[in-house]
């Protein structure tokens, strides 16, 4: 079973959780948007150490989907798509969610195999272990398994 690690004391933050063949990404924050930003960091960390990625250039991303969980998968898939077609890695994110619309900026730089040492490419975000939830303390978690 994919069990996300418990939300840590200091927010925002991100984590990976175990899946036998692939990997789970989880973001924690005080708002859904913050949890989405952190999950995007976890997405980059599936590929390489985010600290090695310079936030040198920004791209804009927009998604629209009324279901917050499906919006989360759309957000991750938009990042996967942009990484693939632009050959970029990202390390900084700013997300705004208004109703069904997500507007974001993602900062990163072109993939440098020597410096970034990318371990694996991500095929897509899945609906497995998908959740966007608020806990009793009011903290948000956004998580799902990604196919690598």
């Amino acid at each position, binding site marked *: *079973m994919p069990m996300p690690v418990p939300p840590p004391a200091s927010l925002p933050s991100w984590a*990976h959780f*175990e*899946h*036998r*063949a*692939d*990997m789970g990404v989880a973001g924690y924050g005080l708002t859904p948007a913050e949890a989405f930003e952190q999950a995007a960091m976890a997405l980059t960390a599936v*590929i*390489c150490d985010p600290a090695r990625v310079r936030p040198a250039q920004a791209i804009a991303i927009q998604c629209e989907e009324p279901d917050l969980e*499906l919006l989360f*998968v*759309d957000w991750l*898939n938009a990042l*996967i*798509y942009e990484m*693939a*077609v632009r*050959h970029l890695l990202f390390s900084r994110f700013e997300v705004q969610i208004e109703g069904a619309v997500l507007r974001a900026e993602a900062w990163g730089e*072109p*993939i440098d*195999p020597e410096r970034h*040492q*990318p*371990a*694996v*490419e991500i*095929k*897509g*975000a*899945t*609906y*497995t272990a*998908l959740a966007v939830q608020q806990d009793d303390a009011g903290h948000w978690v956004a998580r799902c*398994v990604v*196919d*690598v």
Partner: protein
Amino acid sequence: MDLKTLTKLTDTQWRIEPKGPMRVPGILFGNEALIRDMDDKVYEQVANVASLPGIVQAAYAMPDAHWGYGFPIGGVAAFDPDEGGVVSGGGVGFDISCGVRTLHTGLDRAAILAVQRELADALYYRIPVGLGSTGAIRLDDREMDAMLAGGASWAVGRGYGRPEDLGRIEENGRMAGADPKQVSEQAKRRQRDEMGTLGSGNHYLELQEVTAIHDPAIAATYGLEQGAVVVSIHCGSRGLGHQIGTDYLKRMALAASQHGIHLPDRELACAPLNSDLGRAYLGAMCAGINCALANRQILTHLARQVFRDILGADLRLLYDVSHNTCKLEEHRVEGRQRRLYVHRKGATRAFGPGHPDLPADLRAAGQPVLIGGTMGTASYVLAGTRQSQELAFNSACHGAGRAMSRHAATRRWQGRAVQNELASRGILVRSPSPRGMAEEAPGAYKDVSEVVAATDRAGLAKLVARLEPLVCIKG
């Protein structure tokens, strides 16, 4: 998995009795140890697949089955379009038509070892591998659609390979029914510079020595001899297939209720075969299969260039199999011939001797079933059997399957150490990513030999030859 939840039919066949919404039973193949080691999610996912509309006979799990998306990896299920049957994006997977092809080098171990390092370096230089790598081919809109309609046949027409290659590929290298219009612009854009790239993760190009012959007669038909060296390529439909999977998973999940389909797991997203969405997915998925076939054909061309330059050798194609597909096939069910859509998710088609779709010179032996290993363990060649038709719609296992998560693997191993340890055993690995090598360490996988032995014992496919790696180009 708790064996008490299953009915034991034979030493290698276990049944999940139908209950609740299940329309048919589930059948798991594997010896007791493999079944016990399977995660409980396989049980749940097989039971979920068995509840889908129009499923025929049973939902199956191969001996290498593990937790997947909706369907288990190693899952097989056939659906009848005339009985409300469905097609499922999760039942095919994100890497559409990921598969293996094996080529004869006509050379023995000694000839390869004389230039082993040079070959490893040249293949690593010539084959685009790893995240962000691009191929030399750029496809404009018209060529993209021609590739998606033509598959390996398109590639051969553009000079990548020879016409005689095509007979040794499933569907003669071109999947009928492809509809490039059903493939999104995003999917096409993702593929624009990825033709002829290997990818990453568990994808590889290996030089392998034939170290054991288990069935001399079939091995002779396949052209496999003890000590001979082959090239095996494992990869799929690259970014295009991944994007088709992403696009249709969402469309099918959102439309399920309109089609009156209850999804116990959103990842089981599917659409009736006889619906606009079902037909659109089939058209896109068949285009994805063609992309994978074209990609493996271009990689073959690159490998041939290296062998020609260094050894003056030619590579002849033994066979090319696909693992993640849904194909229309004729099967005999309870005495009646039926046209069914067979999903194989992480499972290999395994047509038995005499099947009309096999090339004439292989027909008597049955279809080559190519089972990939890991960087450090064996791969296997098996042959389709007559009984596999009634056992699981002519299907067999596809590989070892992971035993450990990627995180657990990186905690246990370091990439360079894995590479050095393999080099000390005579296996040269070339990879852009140390962490990738750690995540793909041979010890992170199940014992492929046990999976293959169970497949043979169950009668799904017959063991023919064992292959061991000498060189591995890893994404």
